[in-house]
């Protein structure tokens, strides 16, 4: 998956875990927490959805990397480069 594919995938995950959020105007540089109503349970769900969909394991110490769209994509790029887009 390319960085763009990963971004689309993360948006899809956010759509599933926070269906009431408007995701159309997300600022990729700004922390999710500052623009969406996400709590610690939701961040766990981003991790769990990635595991469910792509078998990616993210250690708890790395959850902080998922703060914003940019940091998430940067963090996931090497982990997801060999995953073929469905």
């Amino acid at each position, binding site marked *: 998956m390319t960085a763009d594919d990963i971004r689309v995938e993360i948006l899809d995950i956010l759509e599933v875990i*926070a269906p009431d959020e408007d995701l159309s105007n997300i600022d990729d540089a700004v922390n999710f927490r500052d623009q969406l*109503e996400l709590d610690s*349970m939701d961040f*766990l769900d981003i991790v*769990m959805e990635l595991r*469910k969909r792509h078998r990616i394991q993210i250690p708890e110490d790395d959850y902080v990397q998922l703060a914003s769209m940019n940091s998430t994509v940067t963090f996931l790029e090497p982990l997801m480069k060999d995953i073929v887009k469905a």
Partner: protein
Amino acid sequence: MYDTIIIGAGMSGLAAGIRLAYFDQRVCILERHYTIGGLNSFYRMRGRDYDVGLHALTNITPKGTKKGPLARLLKQLRLSRDDLNISAQLGSDIVFPGVRLRFDNDLDLLRAEIAREFPAQQENFEKLIASVVEYDDLDETHQAISARQRLAEMIPEPMLVEMLFCPLMFYGSAREHDMDWGQFSIMFRSIFMEGLGRPYAGVRLILKQLVRKFRGLGGELKLRSGVDRLAVEDGRVVGVVLENGEVLEGRRVLSSAGWPETMRMCDDGDPVTTRSAGRLSFCETIATLDVQPKDLGHDRAITFFNDSEEFTWEKSADPCDVRSGVICSPNNFAYDEPLAEGTMRITSLANFDYWQGLDEQQYQLEKLRWYDRITESAVRFVPDYRSRVLDTDMFTPTTVVRFTGHDNGAIYGTPEKQFDGRTHLENLFVCGTDQGFVGIIGSIVSGISMANQHCLRD
């Protein structure tokens, strides 16, 4: 080999099961009873549907609200608000001698009522709201402070304090006389700041949605499958032995059976932590009417009453404590169409030992006697509906034991909660009433958070 075995198909067990099954675990829920729900269940009798447990759902925020426990649990369970088909209450009240405080799902009504009845306490009530809002329910450090002490410091008007405690204790205090500040804050927000609502079809809709979701995700549910014991070796549960002798293996066990009840299941001798069971149980009368309550002049969803200035929250000395109670009319919610028949339910504190000690014949007679007394007490606060009754039923503390397995029929479980859900065994955890949160929303949140913390991360 299961990834997780869950004991109890009540709200918390089902919610935990959904979380785990959604993330592809092999999950089995074991339920001793022939039906699901535990404390919150439903039945059919003489052609009518009845609910047990649920009066109203708490934490009812307007549709689209992104914050709060209801929004959180819907997100976590991947349910939509429409799946639960919740209608808001028309309004409720708290009635003490000479004072009636009405409230609904907009805090401003309660504010105005307090301004009218207790004008000197308006500012103090605002201070109370501010400190309740400050409490972080994901941070447990304030749990142990006495709510009575904090309220006494903030509101020097004992009757108002009692009137605020009455609904919160009835809807969620396992502890006699007092509540932890944390529990008080959670309940205050749930009831006064968020609000009450109910699905048109009652608790069965919630349970059916949870079971459908769980099974749809591949979860297994075994009814009539009581757990005889948990086989323990080297600090781990190695097998779940059912009453029929079958042995199930799971990498971990999540029990909603209650703390003392779960400890007793472990076959490693003396439980490491002994803890007394709760003592607070209820009787509840249910009357089906040939008229809608509002046509008798009663439009309240819930009426909390107490017949003196002081509210007593303790194990009843009498078979039932009829000085106070909760009157619920499932009709008085803003549904699209009215329920077919009128219903009045009255809950009062009750003495488990008394009801447990009766033989079958005495039990039936005493139920009739106390049905009358409870109703007689309640109609001091709502219109007398006794000439309009089509059918009645009643549950007692022994019914609660039969459905929940909780010692003493303790509705809200043990006074001392196990907030982190851990036990002396590394792969045994507790959820539900004895973990911390109570009520339907609280139980579901408990199941979700214990599943998240202990069962998902490996």
